[in-house]
C-alpha cells in the first residue's frame, strides 16, 4: 500500500503510466470541486469529510467520514466523489468510511466559513467543545451582521444546522452548529 497525505512527499516506487495514476495532490484538487449536495457553496474537502486519498495497488481509495451518522447526504457524497474521480479517468476507485476520529466542525477552514456566511448560513462559533459548555452561542446574523440573534430551534433543515432568527433585520437564518 502506498499512502500519501495531502501535501505528501514523492511516492517512492516505480512510476506507472501517468494517465493511469494521477498524483495524490491532483486527486485532492478534483475533490475540491465536488460540492456538498445540501450546501453546494462548499466542497466535500472544505467540510473536512475527506480524510485521506491513497493508492492501494491499482485502486484509488478515498477515505471519508460522515458528518452526522444518519445524514442522508453521506451516501450521495460517496457517489459524487466516485463519479468525479471516474470522470477524470480513474476507473478503480473505492470509498472507505472511517468513524474515528469523529468529524468535527473544527475541520471547516476559515475560507469555507466565509463561503457559508456569504451563502446565508452562519458558520460554527467557537470550537466543537462548546457543545455542552456553550448552550447559547453568540451568533452573528449572516444577512445584516447584527449580534442580536436568537435560537428558534436546536435543529434545522439538515442535521448539521440549527434554526435562528435575527432580532434586528427579523430574517430567519440557518446556523451551522458547532459540533
Amino acid at each position, binding site marked *: 500500500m502506498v499512502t500519501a497525505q495531502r501535501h505528501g512527499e514523492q511516492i517512492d516506487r516505480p512510476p506507472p503510466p501517468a494517465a493511469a495514476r494521477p498524483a495524490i495532490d491532483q486527486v485532492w484538487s478534483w475533490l475540491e470541486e465536488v460540492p456538498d449536495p445540501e450546501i453546494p457553496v462548499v466542497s466535500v474537502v472544505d467540510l473536512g469529510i475527506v480524510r485521506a486519498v491513497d493508492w492501494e495497488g491499482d485502486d484509488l481509495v478515498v477515505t471519508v467520514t*460522515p458528518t*452526522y451518522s444518519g445524514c442522508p447526504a453521506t451516501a450521495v457524497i460517496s457517489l459524487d466523489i466516485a463519479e468525479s474521480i471516474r470522470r477524470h479517468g480513474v476507473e478503480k476507485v473505492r470509498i472507505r468510511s472511517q468513524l474515528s476520529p469523529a468529524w468535527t466542525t473544527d475541520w471547516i477552514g476559515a475560507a469555507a466559513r466565509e463561503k457559508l456566511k456569504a451563502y446565508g448560513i452562519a458558520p460554527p462559533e467557537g470550537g466543537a467543545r462548546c457543545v455542552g459548555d456553550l448552550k447559547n452561542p453568540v451568533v452573528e446574523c449572516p444577512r445584516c451582521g447584527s449580534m442580536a440573534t436568537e435560537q428558534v430551534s436546536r435543529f434545522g433543515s439538515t*442535521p448539521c444546522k440549527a434554526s435562528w432568527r435575527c432580532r434586528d433585520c427579523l430574517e430567519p437564518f440557518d446556523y451551522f452548529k458547532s459540533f
Partner: protein
Amino acid sequence: MTTATKTDAALFEFALRMGDNAVVLAQRVGAWCGHAPAIEEDIAFANVALDLIGQTRMWLGLAGEIEGKGRDADQLAFLRDARAYRNALLVEQPNVDFAHTLMRQFLFDAWHHPMLVALKSSADARVADIAEKAEKEARYHLERSEDLIIRLGDGTEESRQRMQAALDALYPFAGELCAADALDADLAARKIAPDLGALGERYLAYLKSTLADATLTAPVGAAVRKGGKQGLHSEHLGYILADMQFLQRAYPGATW
C-alpha cells in the same frame, strides 16, 4: 477458541441491544413527523430520529459483522421478530402525548450519553469508534431533552401535570437500562462495556437533580419493569415492527 466464540456471542448480543434501542426509539420518535405541536419540535424529533437511524446502521452493521452469517443492518432490522429484538422496554412505550414522548426521550438520553462516553474506552476498537461518533449526537439530544423537561416541568400547571403523569408512567422502565445481567457482567469484565452498576448510580443521581430542577417527583418504590434486553417485550413492540417491517415482509428483498 472457546473464549473467542463466547466473546463474539456476547458482543453480538450487546451490539443488538444498542442498535435495537436506537431503531425502536427512532421509529417511535419518527411518528411525530408532521404531527408535533410546533414546527421547531417537529424538525427536532425528525433530526433525533435520523441520528438514531444512523446509529442503528452502525450498531446492527457491527452485529452482522460479528455474527458472520451474511446478515447486514437492514436484514437485522427488518427480518427479526419481536422475540429476537433486544431493546429495553422503555423505548417501545407508546408516544401517548408530547409529554410522554419527551419524558421517554429524556430518560433514554440521560442513560445513552454517559453509556456512549464510557464505551469510547471500550477494549473493542469497533465499539469505541461507533461510540465516539454517536456520543456527540447523544450529547446534543440530551441538552435538548433536559432543557425541555425543566421548562415544561417547571412550566404551567397543565404542562407540569402532564410531565408528572409521564414520569409516573415511564420511570419504572428506566431501571432496565442499568440493570446488568450475566452478559453485561461478562462484557464489563472484558472491558468491552462499562460496569452498569456504577453507571446506574450516576444515572439516578443525575435524574434526581434534574427532575428536582423540573419540580417533578420520581415515584418511590416503583418496581423495575424489565425483560426487553432478553427479548421479552411488552405488546407494543409487535405493532411497531408490523409497521416498520411491512415492506420487507410483503416484498422480500425490495431495495430503493
